[in-house]
């Protein structure tokens, strides 16, 4: 395997971020369409540590939007994603959790992160994570959630909006996967919004 340095990997990054990205720890809640794309974006720019959480394995139906290959089918998503991330950024620290996130374990698993990326597909799981931020449990952390990325309607309807001082939502807040399906283009746009908001937060807090 060819070798590179961290400085080479990050040479084209914005100069303002120098010294900040490697200090960041980001939680990825779900390693499907959103989570795999966000994780790869953050690995490419040199984020220091990712905590990956997913209880699922790669299936053939995931390939239309998730960053996996045919040979990954049957692998745990956290394992398959780790392989990809290490091929891009060997300096990245990765902590994997092959389990389902719940109100009971979320504060333990994400104890050390500064930012959590909500990347689930079920409404109930998305709501669980947003609600976990009510109260004082996560008052020092940020959440970047996603809502409305289904179908193939206009890409420009996907926006990043502020829900509170520490919660942001990316998406059109309308389209739903049951009615419209989910495909790579809009999922990747929403994931790009999430990854970019993570970078903005890192720049602000580190």
């Amino acid at each position: 395997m060819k070798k590179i340095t961290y400085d080479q990997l990050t040479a084209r990054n914005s100069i303002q971020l120098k010294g900040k990205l490697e200090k960041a720890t980001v939680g990825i809640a779900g390693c499907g369409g959103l989570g795999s794309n966000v994780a790869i974006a953050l690995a490419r720019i040199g984020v220091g540590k990712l905590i990956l959480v997913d209880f699922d394995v790669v299936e053939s139906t995931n390939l239309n939007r998730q960053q996996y290959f045919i040979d990954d089918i049957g692998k745990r998503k956290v394992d398959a994603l780790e392989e990809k991330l290490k091929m891009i950024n060997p300096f990245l620290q990765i902590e994997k959790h092959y389990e389902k996130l719940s109100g009971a374990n979320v504060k333990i698993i994400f104890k050390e992160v500064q930012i959590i990326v909500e990347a689930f597909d079920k409404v109930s799981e998305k709501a669980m994570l947003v609600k976990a931020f009510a109260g004082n449990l996560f008052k020092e952390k940020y959440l970047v959630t996603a809502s409305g990325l289904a179908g193939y309607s206009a890409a420009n309807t996907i926006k990043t909006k502020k829900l509170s001082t520490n919660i942001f939502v990316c998406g059109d807040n309308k389209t739903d996967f049951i009615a419209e399906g989910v495909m790579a283009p809009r999922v990747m746009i929403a994931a790009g919004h999430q990854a970019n908001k993570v970078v903005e937060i890192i720049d602000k807090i580190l």
Partner: protein
Amino acid sequence: MKIFFEYLGLLHIEDIKNKSYIDVESGCTAAELMTVLKIRKEHQKFISIFINDVEKSRQTVIKENDRVKLFLPTGGG
């Protein structure tokens, strides 16, 4: 009393314009607001409530001129 009301997500709220001032009874809680607005029970359980840019519980009493935002996520990821 008047509050500023906004919602995000696939909510069907009759006769209420999104991002507008609405009248609610003094002492109304966030939970009561969702009932007054006739939001379906199956939606209410997934809604997060933000008042003046802070996430709050359903028991929070809404005050005059509060900015109340309801967020119902849509599925897909």
